[in-house]
């Protein structure tokens, strides 16, 4: 049993929170005392039915305003899979929160109101999911109960979206007619849509296959050097880190970057157990043949599979801070465990997520998605985000406030 992380995109009006509430409620993931609190909250405003959207809005300001401001994480599991939902706000002013939620998602559910069809917002959300490297999308056409479960309306919306998908990088998009409020095609197939031959949302989520990067080139960055001071382990020197992609085996000829020194993997430990092989997603401790000076942030790659190296590179830059990008300033770029100083040399263009078009721009402001050229004070060893996302992504940090001001996906 593994975990599927997904993000739900859409706003309250599309029934997004209701959909999440429905998934939690119908999979018995809400406890009765929490339900009691919900009923108490609902009583004042509604006609006695439980407002499932109240499950996700955790902060007082969110409940008062009836909107989701921050990303909330919700958990449920069935006997087939464990699920983590990132519930991100839909409004344009919270684009950065959605980018954050999408950065950790395997799949995106795009909520579409059957009465409104594909809107600017749908396009914006679809575009963000694609940009952040999500490979699977579910277009949930919601509120089918309000259009008499009309197959024509469902097909029109589907066709409309299909025409747009060429510009997106999803491997798989499926369309499901639902009513989150009434539970149609959420957990079980609905009798109201006999014309729909696909699956309900939950069964699909239970079996959808996740893409892995075990087959990619091998990438490993040193996170932490384990050197016991104890005499019993005098010669122990292990390089702990995360296999970002690909796999490593005992006997692999490897190269340390930036020094370029070549050596061999002689032992791999996984949680104190010796193993022969380590693969993407696993935390392991590598032991090398030679006693070399290696520190946090250094890369250990296979001799035959070296990454790109450069001091200047082109990257996507999504801006998260209220203060716009300042081209005169130096920023910190955190590329996994390695942090370097950077300057943004030039802004190439801005991606207008509503129109799906590039336009020239002079500035980078909150929620802007742009392509820029950066210069680093140390050589970076990286891959394009599209090739190996784990080694092609970084965050930008303001040197004075220490805020995370941007997300970079290397081009």
């Amino acid at each position, binding site marked *: 049993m593994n975990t599927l992380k997904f993000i739900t995109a859409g706003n309250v009006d599309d029934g997004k929170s209701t959909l999440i509430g429905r998934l939690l409620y119908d999979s018995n993931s809400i406890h009765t005392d*929490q339900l009691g609190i919900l009923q108490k909250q609902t009583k004042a405003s509604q006609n006695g039915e439980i407002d499932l959207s109240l499950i996700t809005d955790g902060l007082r300001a969110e409940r008062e305003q009836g909107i989701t401001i921050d990303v909330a994480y919700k958990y449920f599991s069935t006997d087939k899979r464990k699920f983590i939902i990132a519930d991100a706000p839909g409004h344009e002013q919270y684009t950065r929160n959605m980018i954050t939620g999408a950065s950790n998602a395997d799949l995106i559910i795009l909520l579409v109101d059957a009465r409104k069809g594909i809107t600017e917002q749908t396009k914006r959300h679809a575009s963000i999911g694609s940009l952040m490297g999500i490979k699977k999308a579910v277009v949930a056409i919601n509120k089918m109960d309000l259009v008499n479960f009309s197959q024509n309306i469902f097909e029109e919306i589907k066709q409309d979206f299909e025409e747009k998908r060429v510009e997106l990088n999803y491997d798989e998009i499926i369309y499901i007619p639902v009513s989150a409020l009434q539970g149609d095609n959420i957990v079980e197939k609905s009798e109201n849509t006999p014309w729909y031959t696909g699956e309900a949302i939950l069964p699909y989520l239970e079996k959808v296959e996740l893409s892995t990067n075990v087959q990619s080139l091998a990438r490993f960055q040193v996170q*932490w050097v384990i050197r016991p001071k104890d005499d019993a382990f005098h010669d122990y020197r292990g390089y702990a880190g995360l296999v970002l992609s690909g796999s490593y085996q005992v006997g692999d000829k490897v190269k340390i970057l930036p020094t370029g020194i070549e050596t061999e993997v002689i032992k791999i430990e996984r949680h104190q157990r010796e193993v022969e092989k380590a693969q993407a997603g696993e*935390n392991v401790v590598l032991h090398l043949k030679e006693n070399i000076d290696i520190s946090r942030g250094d890369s250990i790659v296979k001799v035959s599979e070296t990454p790109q190296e450069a001091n200047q590179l082109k990257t996507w830059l999504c801006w998260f801070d209220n203060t716009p990008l300042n081209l005169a300033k130096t920023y910190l770029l955190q590329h996994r465990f390695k942090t370097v100083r950077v300057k943004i040399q030039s802004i190439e263009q801005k991606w207008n997520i509503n129109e799906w078009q590039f336009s020239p721009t002079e500035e980078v402001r909150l929620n802007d998605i742009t392509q820029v050229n950066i210069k680093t004070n140390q050589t970076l060893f990286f891959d394009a985000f599209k090739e190996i996302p784990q080694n092609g992504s970084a965050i930008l940090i303001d040197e004075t406030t220490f805020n995370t001001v941007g997300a970079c996906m290397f081009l």
Partner: protein
Amino acid sequence: MNDYLEQLEDEAIYILRETAAQFERPALLFSGGKDSIVLIHLALKAFRPAKFPFPLVHIDTGHNFPEALAFRDKLVAEIDEKLIVGYVEDSMKKYSLKETQGRFPSRNALQTYTLLDVIQANEFDACIGGARRDEEKARAKERIFSVRDDFGQWEPKLQRPELWNILNGKIHKGHNVRVFPISNWTELDVWNYIKKHKIELPNLYFSHERDCIVHQDKLVAISDFIQPLPTDIVVNEKVRYRTVGDMTCTAAVPSTASTIDEIIAEIIETSISERGQTRLDDQLSEAAMEDRKKQGYF
């Protein structure tokens, strides 16, 4: 990697190592409860054969279960790591603080003073805690690295975005970060992990006989801190603890579950949440946890 427990374990070990690497003086907050016992187990996996790059910190409210304290001392001796204890009773004297009035005096909110004092005295810049996002709604919005200002306060609207698993631990002097390695674990995940790795727990977690006062459908243990009144209904029941907090504000649950498997079966069956069933102080208001966190609670 197809096992969700292994995924959770990897994520937690990654966060622990990241904390060790990014901070000058981290600490691991150890409450004696199952979640922090699991944290210690994860830290052993992350750092052995070397010592932990941080001490353990226990905030002692003075209302602890004796079993939990005994277990703490035994565990610390076994793993041979450093333990720092901060006493809430010292803070109560120093700041003239009073616990909440009434039958079941809570020192829950007072812990914050002691924690902030310990952080300041030791110049800790990061405190690792065992909080989980599934526990409570305000916690669901919590970051893995949660930045707190000089007053230890949490500002939910100004949280740093956390992208991928790149953690930004850069802070100004005087600020500190609360680190939550098991954010994405649920109560059931914790129990399944304890089972898989045969992790030892205080016997409070397993069914035992205990004299309790029945208070608003909840069972509160009779102890040095809570004595029955003549009007109280006192029962002797087979109970266990689902969470281990203070003796004064943690309720026992009726249970005959004496093995991990039986406990897991009970948790799957139960329709009441962990905090809802066992904490007497979360239900005061809808935003009780959010307010406490803003004050510096973890």
